[in-house]
């Protein structure tokens, strides 16, 4: 940490301040959900799960399990059906999704019963004694096969495996394709993978029958919409369901937003057994039945002129959401609605988005929610356009970029890109990568018979989802009904308090999972109040009973860097305004002659008496008589920040699906060994524009981590299933998480276009390169193997798949 030398104008924002979180986490004193029981006399749950991908449940035999000493109860799907409701889903198809299987199991690992016992060991013993009688049914795992007329149907009430379909039309895509000089078509497949946080899910629930309150401690990254959804399922008013999050969460990356069905299940187990119940997921359960991103089959079409100008695109998507469509799906299709066009100027687009249910684990947000898919396809198409026209991939992109002077820029799909300079960021990536040199090296390598490739990928990086996007899944006619209530918003709150000795406490309603919120907030408050980060205590530890929160609150969608930091800055500024008004009263001066500067209220001009924060705090707490008439006693301010650009989806399906939009430009050089199909990353450059960077060290940590998630999806990670729906990757032996040996060296640079929408100019950065790396790797490998005519259209690019492609290409 570099300490500022003191004095006016020194700012903590922009410095790589060391994290306040680290001391406890490095010494084993972190407090994760499994570490310290928040209530005494806890009992432990083990979940019985379906071994079948698709089976009717005929009955349960529970005698042996119940007879085991230490067991206090066994809850089955029948109890779940009797005592809870199905969760609301984001589509109109009548999908009945309960927190455990009630009639049929629809994927391997779906909960069918819960055992509650004195210890986890006993609970697991008893779980093995639970007998569930099944009638196995044929399974289907491929989204295209699932839509064939003779495919097994998962939900009889729906009658088809198609959970939803929307055809969205922006501009006049038919005309764009009629006018085109070049039309390109391609099919892509994106794999099912998830970020598998090293800490698994954990839930502790205590249902108090007497006061009617259910308290749930969990490593949930919400509460957002899942709190009201869960309250409704449990038949509780929202002010009787209390969610508390421990100080530390062991990673999430979107995955822990899908813990809510387990919150309902464990809460129900507590209600029915009358004891406080704890459940910690094990790794096998996590890989079988937590959450992943969707696997997708995409058909892409691109219309362009011969000069490389893109006129329009068509997207046809089949997103596979597994056994049930679970909220916030089908965000897998619509989360990026506002940035469907990415960084490009074209105005005509058709999107045909189908959400398909098959006998696989359910899906939800995974780092880069749906953007990894989007840019893998779009950037693949841009490279095909370059190749078709004989243009350089950088040049074809330059010709289509939204120019720097066009911001704020309204996209044809309703997005409002707040700021940016995309050509400058691309230029920076080209320089940093020494792109021309890489191309010369490629020419030499090819002449020598080596397979050397250079990939480019660009992305608009959306942060802070506007929850209004979810309604894009619904038909505009449905949304036009008078009883339909529109949705919009992206809100966060913060409170800043000054104690009687002038020390500052900031209280957040966030649920950080490693992003260093305490450090960032200490930096912001120190700057605003003219103090030092060490003197600011920051409390996150979300509690829905005590924190100020709203329906979109939570730590997801790269929110904190944009909306959370804004709430903190505004709360501090509110407090400063009060300090000025108070000091003006004490000095008997007009408030506009004073200002808050360097930790004290001082005259705007000239010398004169000043009041420090400590002085004012002491008076405000100890002597309320000294306050002006009408001023609230004490010294605290709460701010709730929301974006007024977060609007509901309009009748033409346009929606500003995020609130701030960053930019990413990446270049990667690889060499492929044609004998082993090994891919060696030789250079990887990533340039980000996330507006104002508050802590460069933390920002770069997010980029490194995001990039490795993208690399996992590009080369290693896939939840694989056989044709019967059995998961083949239910351990870390089979599901390949990249290790330090696979992590590439990354060169990072920033371009800074402050957001005009946030008080600090900052944007989100948390998902970052997870959304570009699948594209840049695929493009680099395709470029390397272009002499063999190989183009990567499916991920992950495993050695066995690539080896087969190379062998086949060499034979023909």
């Amino acid at each position, binding site marked *: 940490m570099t300490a500022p030398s003191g004095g006016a104008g020194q700012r903590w924002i922009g410095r790589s301040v060391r*994290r306040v979180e680290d001391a406890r986490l*490095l010494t084993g004193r972190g407090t994760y959900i499994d570490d*310290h029981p928040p209530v005494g006399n806890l009992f432990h749950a083990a979940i019985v799960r379906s071994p079948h991908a698709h089976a009717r449940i005929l009955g349960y035999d529970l005698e042996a399990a119940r007879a085991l000493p230490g067991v206090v109860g066994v809850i089955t799907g029948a109890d779940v059906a009797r005592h809870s409701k199905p969760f609301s889903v984001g589509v109109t198809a009548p999908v009945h999704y309960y927190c455990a299987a009630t009639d049929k199991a629809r994927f391997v690992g779906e909960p069918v019963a819960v055992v509650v016992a004195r210890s986890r060991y006993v609970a697991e013993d008893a779980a093995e004694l639970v007998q569930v009688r099944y009638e196995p049914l044929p399974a289907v795992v491929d989204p295209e096969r699932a839509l064939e007329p003779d495919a097994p149907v998962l939900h009889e009430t729906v009658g088809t495996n198609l959970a939803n379909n929307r055809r969205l039309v922006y501009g006049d895509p038919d005309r764009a394709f009629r006018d085109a000089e070049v039309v390109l078509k391609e099919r892509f497949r994106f794999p099912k993978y998830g970020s*598998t946080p*090293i800490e*698994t899910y954990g839930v502790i629930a205590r249902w108090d029958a007497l006061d009617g309150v259910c308290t749930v401690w969990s490593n949930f990254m919400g509460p957002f919409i899942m709190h009201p959804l869960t309250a409704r399922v449990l038949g509780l008013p929202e002010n009787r369901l209390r969610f508390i999050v421990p100080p530390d969460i062991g990673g999430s990356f979107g995955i822990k937003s899908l813990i809510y069905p387990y919150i309902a299940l464990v809460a129900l187990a507590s209600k029915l057994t009358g004891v406080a119940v704890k459940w910690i997921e094990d*790794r096998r359960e996590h890989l079988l039945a937590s959450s992943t991103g969707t696997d997708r089959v995409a058909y892409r079409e691109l219309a362009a002129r011969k000069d490389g100008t893109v006129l329009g695109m068509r997207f046809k998507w089949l997103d596979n959401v597994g056994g049930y469509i679970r909220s916030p799906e089908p965000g897998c299709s619509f989360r990026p609605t506002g940035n469907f066009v990415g960084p490009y100027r074209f105005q005509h687009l058709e999107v045909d988005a189908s959400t398909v249910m098959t006998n696989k684990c359910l899906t939800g947000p995974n780092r880069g929610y749906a953007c990894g898919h989007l840019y893998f396809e779009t950037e693949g198409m841009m490279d095909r356009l370059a190749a078709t026209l004989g243009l350089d991939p950088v040049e074809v992109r330059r010709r289509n970029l939204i120019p720097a002077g066009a911001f704020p820029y309204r996209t044809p799909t309703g997005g409002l890109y707040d700021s940016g300079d995309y050509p400058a960021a691309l230029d920076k990536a080209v320089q940093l990568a020494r792109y021309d040199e890489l191309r010369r090296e490629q020419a030499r390598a090819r002449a020598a018979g080596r397979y050397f490739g250079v990939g480019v990928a660009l992305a608009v990086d959306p942060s802070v989802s506007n929850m209004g996007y979810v309604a894009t899944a619904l038909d505009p006619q449905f949304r036009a009904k008078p009883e339909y209530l529109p949705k919009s918003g992206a809100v966060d709150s913060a409170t800043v308090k000054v104690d009687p000795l002038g020390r500052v406490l900031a209280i957040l309603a966030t649920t950080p999972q490693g992003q260093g919120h305490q450090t960032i907030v200490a930096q912001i408050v120190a700057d605003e109040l003219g103090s030092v980060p060490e003197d600011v205590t920051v409390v996150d530890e979300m509690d829905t009973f005590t924190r100020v929160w709203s329906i979109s609150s939570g730590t997801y969608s790269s929110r904190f860097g944009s909306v959370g930091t804004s709430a903190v800055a505004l709360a501090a500024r509110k407090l400063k305004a009060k300090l000025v008004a108070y000091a003006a009263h004490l000095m008997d001066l007009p408030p506009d002659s004073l200002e808050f500067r360097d930790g004290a209220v001082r005259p705007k001009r000239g010398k004169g008496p000043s009041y420090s924060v400590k002085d004012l705090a002491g008076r405000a707490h100890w002597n309320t008589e000294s306050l002006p008439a009408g001023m609230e006693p004490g010294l605290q301010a709460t701010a709730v920040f929301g974006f007024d650009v977060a609007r509901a989806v309009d009748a033409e399906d346009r929606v500003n699906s995020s609130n701030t939009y960053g930019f990413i430009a990446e270049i990667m050089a690889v060499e492929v060994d044609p004998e082993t199909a090994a891919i060696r990353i030789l250079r990887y450059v990533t340039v980000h524009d996330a507006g104002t960077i508050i802590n460069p060290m933390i920002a770069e940590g997010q980029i490194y981590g995001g990039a490795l998630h993208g690399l996992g999806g590009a080369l290693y990670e896939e939840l694989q299933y056989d044709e019967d729906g059995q998961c083949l990757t239910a*351990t870390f032996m089979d599901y390949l998480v990249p290790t*330090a040996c696979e992590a590439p060296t990354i060169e990072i640079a920033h371009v800074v276009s402050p957001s005009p929408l946030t008080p600090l100019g900052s944007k989100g950065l948390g998902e970052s390169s997870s959304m570009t790396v699948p594209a840049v790797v695929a493009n680099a490998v395709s470029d390397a193997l272009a002499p063999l005519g190989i183009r990567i259209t499916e991920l992950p690019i495993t050695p066995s798949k690539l080896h087969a492609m190379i062998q086949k290409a060499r034979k023909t």
Partner: protein
Amino acid sequence: MADLVSVRLRVNGVEREGRCEPRKLLVDFLREDLGLTGTHVGCEHGICGACTILLDGQAARSCIMLAVQADGAELMTVEGLAKDGKLHPLQEAFREHHGLQCGFCTPGMLMTALDLLRTNPAPSDAEIREGISAVLCRCTGYQGILNAVRAAARAPGGDR
């Protein structure tokens, strides 16, 4: 339930004793019976490395061995790294180089890195990568960890 057995061991220099079922995992014994919750459980099948401790001076996975197997052993866990309120040079380096985000893999990563530096006090970058590949981290992309271990190797006492 089987009869309880007694397990005596030395953890971070302190004699500890507990009674548990013979089937109890060492990591559960450390966390539940001895209250040492710094050691974490990430996979329970010996791959993720979050539960790594030093057992008689060598890195070991506490999730795939039983507490009874550690009877009489000398253990070191993450709680034993800092001395007299001062962070170990490895911990300092992790803090300085942003070698952790969520902190969940960190205890296993620290113990693995300590084992590496004790056996190889001046590792190359490739050797550091190989050494810490025994622990999975999903937050950092490993860059900060690599930098931290490299720095700790150069710091006095990094391998103590």
